[in-house]
Each structure stands twice: as C-alpha cells, then as structure tokens.
C-alpha cells in the first residue's frame, strides 16, 4: 500500500518528466543511430552535458537585434513546458489544468514557439538563419492541412477533440485500434512528426550542410544559455510530439489510473520507454532513407495528407 500523491504534485510531475526526460530521449536516439551505423556513438547523457556546457558560456547578440532576440528562446521554452499540462503524460484521468485547451490548444502553443524562434532569426539579419525560418514557415504551412485533418479524425472518433478522450476511446476496445480511420490518422501524424522534428527524410538532424537545413538553421546566431534553451526546446518538442503519438494514438497503456505513488512512477518509466521505442523507429528510418531534396518535400507531405484525408473519408460512411 503506497501513499496517494496530491493532484497538483502529479501535474507538476508531468512537466518535470518531459522537461528532464527530453534530453535523455535525444541521447538514446543518437546512441541507437550510431550503433546502427557501426559507430560507438556518444554517451546517452551527452545532451545533458551539452546543455550544461552551453549554459556556462557567454551570451552574445548580433548588433541591431532588439530585446525580442533574447526573449524568444524563453517564450519558446515556456510554451513547450505548458503543453505537458494539456496532454496525457502520466495519467488516464484528466488533471485540473488538462482541460485548459484541447489538441488545437497544444497546436497553438507549438506554433507560437516556432513563430517566436523564426521571428528571432529574422532579427539577426544572418542569411542562413533567415533562410531556415523562411523554409520552416513555408513547409509548416503545407503540413498544416495534414494536422487539421488528423484533428478532424480525432473529433469524429470521439465527439470532442480532447487528447484524454481519444486515449480513453483507443483503450476501450480492440475494434477502436484496428479501424482504418485511427490507423490512417496515426500514420499521418507520425509523418508530420518526422517533419516537425527535422528528421530524415525531410532534414538531416545532425547535418552541417547549411543548404539542406530547415529547423536547425534558425538558431545559428544564438549563443550561450539562449542557445541552450533553443536546443532544450527542440528536445522538448520532440518528446512532446512522441508523447502525443504514443499516449494518445498508438499505445495509451501504462498510464496511471490512480494517484498511487507506484502507479505514477511506473507511468514515468513507461512514458520514457515508449518515447525511446518511437525514437528507435525514427533512428531506423534515419538510417534507411535518403534525405529528400527540398522541392520533393511536397511529395512527402502530400502522402501524409492523403492518409489523413482518407481517414476522415472512411469515418463519414460510418464504420470507418
């Protein structure tokens, strides 16, 4: 018999799990990817050391950049740390702040973060940072319809668009998992996640070739603690998207259904394990496909769009 945790503490734990687990998941992916390539790879804790190193360094801003350049990483990280309050990270039951917003609310926060980072990149006047933010905005405009259709599918499946409701629906019966609408929407979301986290086939995550960069190029001019915040922010974004995929769409099991300490601890371990499993799949994709040329990304997105649209179609006749 273990003690029951107070609700606010569980809510705080959701944020802390994502905040502290995100660099770990990034480290695991880097390790798996290196192993698949026959290299030893960096330590799994390497992302933590990188962040610690950057925090100790001096912060510089380009001449002429306004206060917004330095505020942007803070706003972005704040937005990323708010999202874990809205999605089922540790519990099957909705926590009090979990109903502040739905999937679109989470989408708002993600886009707010990406918008402020892009604006800060424009402040610098550096051609690469500007090119990166221009590309990021262009391609996020074409992935937007995909996200919307995924949200529509969720709305049609559950009658709401709250992430907790979809997770509960998926858990309710095997028929809910095998239905085409659910599988198509999950596949489309996975493709969007590959795009949003800057993975192959859209972008080389660890590449140093500026011409192929999209997301990575935006933080070129930041340094020191601000750069650390941006790095941490992209790790947070990755873990948040993996959590949405795993806990809402694919495997919403292992979440705590009570306030018991052991259930919550198990949920933390399960979440990190699921995120690492998704990360392993991403690492395999990273190693088995080539990066698409920039103008071929529309083809990738059109395939994701096809999946999402078919998902909505199949629901319209009922029985999808």
């Amino acid at each position, binding site marked *: 018999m273990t003690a029951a945790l107070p609700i606010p503490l569980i809510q705080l734990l959701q944020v802390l799990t994502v905040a502290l687990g995100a660099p770990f998941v990034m480290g695991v992916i880097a390790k798996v990817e290196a192993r698949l390539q026959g290299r030893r790879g960096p330590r799994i804790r390497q992302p933590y050391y990188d962040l610690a190193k950057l925090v100790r360094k001096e912060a510089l801003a380009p001449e002429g950049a306004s206060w917004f350049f330095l505020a942007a990483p803070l706003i972005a990280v704040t937005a990323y740390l708010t999202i874990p309050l809205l999605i089922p990270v540790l519990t099957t039951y909705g926590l009090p702040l979990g109903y502040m917003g*739905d999937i679109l609310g989470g989408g708002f926060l993600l886009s707010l973060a990406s918008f402020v980072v892009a604006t800060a990149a424009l402040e610098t006047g550096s051609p690469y940072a500007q090119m990166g933010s221009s590309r990021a905005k262009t391609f996020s405009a074409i992935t937007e319809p995909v996200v919307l259709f995924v949200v529509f599918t969720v*709305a049609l499946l559950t009658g709401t668009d709250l992430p907790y409701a979809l997770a509960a629906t998926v858990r*309710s*019966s095997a028929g809910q998992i095998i239905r085409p609408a659910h599988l198509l929407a999950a596949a489309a979301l996975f493709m969007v996640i590959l795009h949003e986290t800057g993975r192959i086939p859209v972008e080389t995550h660890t590449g140093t070739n500026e011409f192929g960069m999209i997301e990575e190029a935006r933080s070129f001019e930041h340094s020191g603690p601000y750069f650390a915040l941006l790095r941490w922010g992209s790790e947070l974004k990755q873990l948040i998207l993996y959590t949405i995929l795993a806990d809402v769409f694919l495997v919403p099991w292992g979440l705590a259904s009570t306030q018991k300490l052991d259930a919550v601890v198990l949920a933390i371990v399960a979440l990190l394990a699921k995120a690492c499993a998704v990360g392993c799949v991403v690492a395999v994709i990273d190693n088995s496909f080539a990066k698409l040329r920039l103008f071929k990304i529309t083809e990738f997105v059109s395939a994701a769009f*096809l999946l999402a649209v078919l998902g909505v*179609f199949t629901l319209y006749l009922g029985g999808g």
Partner: protein
Amino acid sequence: MHTAVIHAALIHAALIHAALIRTAQTDPVQAPGVYEGVANVIAAVMLLLEFGMLRQALVRDQIRLYMGQSALLSVLAVVIAADRNLPDLYALAALSAALKVVAVPLVMRRLLGRTESQEGEDAPGVAGSQTLSPASSVLAGIVLAAVGFFCFGALKIHGPAAPALALSLAGAMVLVSFGLMIVRRDVASQAIGFFSLENAISLAALVVASGLPLILETAFLFDLLVAVVVFGMLIRAHHVRAESLSTADLTRLRG
C-alpha cells in the same frame, strides 16, 4: 502552424467549449468490430497502394506495388472465408494469388525486359511519362477517390460478407486506377493501371457477392488473362513500330 489553425480553432470553439463542460465523458463513436476493422484496413491499404502506383515513376516498382495489392486481395479473401465460413473463397484466394502475384508480374517483367535498353534502364518512353508532378497527381487522385468513395457510399449496398466501407474504397480504387491510366503516357503503366482496376473490381465483387459460385469467379480471372495477352501484344507491337513505349508518339495518328 498559423492561420489555418486559428481559423479552425474559431470554427471549433463552440464544440470545444461544450466538450470542456462535459469533461470529456462523451461516448466514443461505436467501433465496427475487429472483423470489419481488419477487412476495412486491408481495403484501405489496397487503395493506398493504388496511390503508390499513381505516384511511382518506375514501372518495375509499379509492378511490385501491384503484386502487393494482389496479395492483399487474396488475404482479404482468406479473412472473409474464415470469418463467414465460405470454403470456396480459399480456392479463389489461392488461384488469384497464383495468377496475380506470380504469373502476371512475371509476364510483365519479361515483356519489359525485352524492351529494355542494354544499360538495364527502364524501357524507352517510360521514364518521365507522368503528365502531372507526383504531388499534383496525388491531389488529383484524392479528388477522384472522394468522388468514387461517396458515390458508392450513396448506393447503400450492404453485402452479406464484407462491410460497406470496403465497397466504397473499391469504388475509389476504380476511379484512381482510371486516373493512373490517364495521367501516364506509357503503355506499360497503363497496363498496370488496367490490371489494378481489375483488382478493384475483384474487391468490390468480394464485398458484394462473395457467395458467388467458384466457377463464375474463376471465369472473371480468365478475363484478366485475356487483358494480359492484349496488353502484351500492344506493348510489343508499339515497341516494334515506334521503338518506345510512350503513347505520345500516337498523337499524330489523329485524322
């Protein structure tokens, strides 16, 4: 993630608000059950493979996708046979697999092998035979699929075996394979489009009339053999006359 999200959020604000008040305890949409789900997923993947053929540039890869689609059709026949206790369908599945997964692709590959150039490249006239870019052809295909899907859905046919959704997906596949034959300029891709059209019809037949006598179903399969012979003749005759597989060379035959 900007303007579109904002618009959609405004549209859905009322819905979300109502949902928040009810604290997400609404009943989920009824799931159709595992058997229907499996049948529908197989049909949906077949439609996706059809889209794959639509955007795939190389004929060899199109043949591979066709093999996958035909294999899925046989799997669906086995699933229906097992669930609805129709032993005839096992024989049909085996026959259709032998023909469409093994024989037709083999014949197509041999026909194309003869027309290939020495360097092992694709046959002349096949590369770059798309009239639309892959992304545009997928978007056009989505429109076609929507028309086919909702038209067949409006018929409200409920077959005894497979669910109505699979029938609508078959309808979408028919139109997309027509689209494939229209947007490609080479005979080989058009042949693949035609064969996959036959797959779509077989899927619809499985859904609506899986209790059909085996002899009739087999007769339909022989229709496919006739089509293969006709397209084989077409490919060879066209290659001999024009040294290319592109039908663009035929346009000046207009009167």
